[in-house]
């Protein structure tokens, strides 16, 4: 089994953080994992992306030429990556700001209005965790408990009070009808 995911969006949307928490969590669960961020000549407010590969055996390449899952937080990322997704792959799409559809017809599109949900929770910064709630449910590789544990370990290094709002954000994403 090997599952590759590309997370992409604007710098500041927590794109690298999504990949990092996910990678950290699957590592806790005993999987082989690689996380590769984009480190090109980027500008603030520009695009950011990272690739996470998860497997039950050694991972040859941390790069995803045909990712199984694509998480897109903005429109340019959808255009950039939709053609790379594996046949029958899943796109998780930030439907709050992406108003177009992928041109490919063979993909499963999964709309997550992360901006609206995070707005209702009163903190737009947790959009990425809303998305991860939905992602974890749909992909089913790890349990929500495992993810929250990983999230806590990472946030714990920064700010303890942040956990509560993130827990709510994750639950909101997880409980979304899919």
């Amino acid at each position, binding site marked *: 089994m090997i599952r590759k995911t590309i997370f992409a969006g604007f710098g500041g949307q927590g794109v690298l953080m999504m990949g990092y928490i996910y990678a950290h969590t699957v590592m806790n669960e005993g999987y082989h994992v*690689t996380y590769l961020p984009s480190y090109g000549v980027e500008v603030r407010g520009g695009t950011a992306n990272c690739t996470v590969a998860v497997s039950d055996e050694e991972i*040859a390449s*941390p*790069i995803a030429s045909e990712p199984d899952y694509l998480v897109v937080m903005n429109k340019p990322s959808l255009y950039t990556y939709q053609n790379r997704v594996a046949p029958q792959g899943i796109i998780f799409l930030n439907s709050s700001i992406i108003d177009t559809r992928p041109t490919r017809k063979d993909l499963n599109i999964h709309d997550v209005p992360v901006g609206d949900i995070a707005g209702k929770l009163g903190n737009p910064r947790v959009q990425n965790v809303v998305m991860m709630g939905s992602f974890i449910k749909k992909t089913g590789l790890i349990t929500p408990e495992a993810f929250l544990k990983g999230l806590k370990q990472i946030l714990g290094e920064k700010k303890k009070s942040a956990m509560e709002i993130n827990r709510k954000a994750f639950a909101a994403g997880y409980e979304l009808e899919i």
Partner: protein
Amino acid sequence: MQGNRVIGEAAIRAGCRFYAGYPITPQNELTEYMADNMRRAKGGTFIQAESEIAAINMVLGAAAAGARAMTSSSSPGISLKQEGISSLAADELPAVIVNIMRGGPGLGNILPSQGDYFQATRGGGHGDYRTIVLAPASVQELADLTMDAFDLADRYRNPVLILADGMMGQMMEPVEFSDPSSRQYPECYILKGKGKGKSKFIRGLILDAIRMEEHNWKLYRKYQVITQKEVRFETFWTDDAEILIVAYGTAARIAKGAIKRSREMGIPVGLIRPITLWPFPMEVIRSFAERVENFLVFEMNTGQMVEDVQLALGGIGKVQFYGRPGGVIPTPAELAKVIAYQARKK
């Protein structure tokens, strides 16, 4: 943990107490990690030097004074350090130099590449010298080989190069740090004032021809010992292989993925992965040639290590080459196609 940071942590755990560097992508996180963490190491010094050349010469000074010292850079910066590396070899001083390779020549780009193989394995700077070159292929190996690099540098009083690329530096993977061995470095080589003892010299300028020749032969004998004792390599699925891939670092990882795909299609292919690029596993490759005829060298450049493989085989067998230079990272599927083509042709 991220590869670059892992190198920093492993170095500090191995007792590195002096780091000087100058920023360059894709190794910046290593310099940053040292800036942040060297101060928690007792007696540790971090210097952001004014240039790469300054950094390597600071390392030379720290090594002469007895510190475990390290510097790091990426391809263009490593070129600048060559004069200092040559001096370290001449002066027989231990130091660890990390090269997180990027595309070249010139300033090139900042993407992963293996274009510095010749520079690393042929000494790089001027004069008759060698550096031990370690080529990690995972973040775990970055940790292990960084620790080993300090021990090797001490044991042979010679600079040791860690040759990785932008992908190794930027990638995160799980890692466990092993316990470092305690340092065995003779006091007699440390410049700290002679006290009542004999004067000590560290000297790279030897104007007399006969004495210079003596020094060259002395270094040569040391390199012979390293060649006999320190060769490291990994074999993967070689037992029944009819085609052998030779690849190192990132390329070797990709090769493993390609080999799995090829095996599923029934192609008997295996991998020899040199872990030390100098000394190169000549004898191992030659011994495989008794049984295997087809070798495929795979590198992220236009063909450098392929020359060492040809040298090892000495005209026996067929050596093919596949490479992608310039920061392109080939996929396992792409290499599997090349393997299938070779298998059909065979």
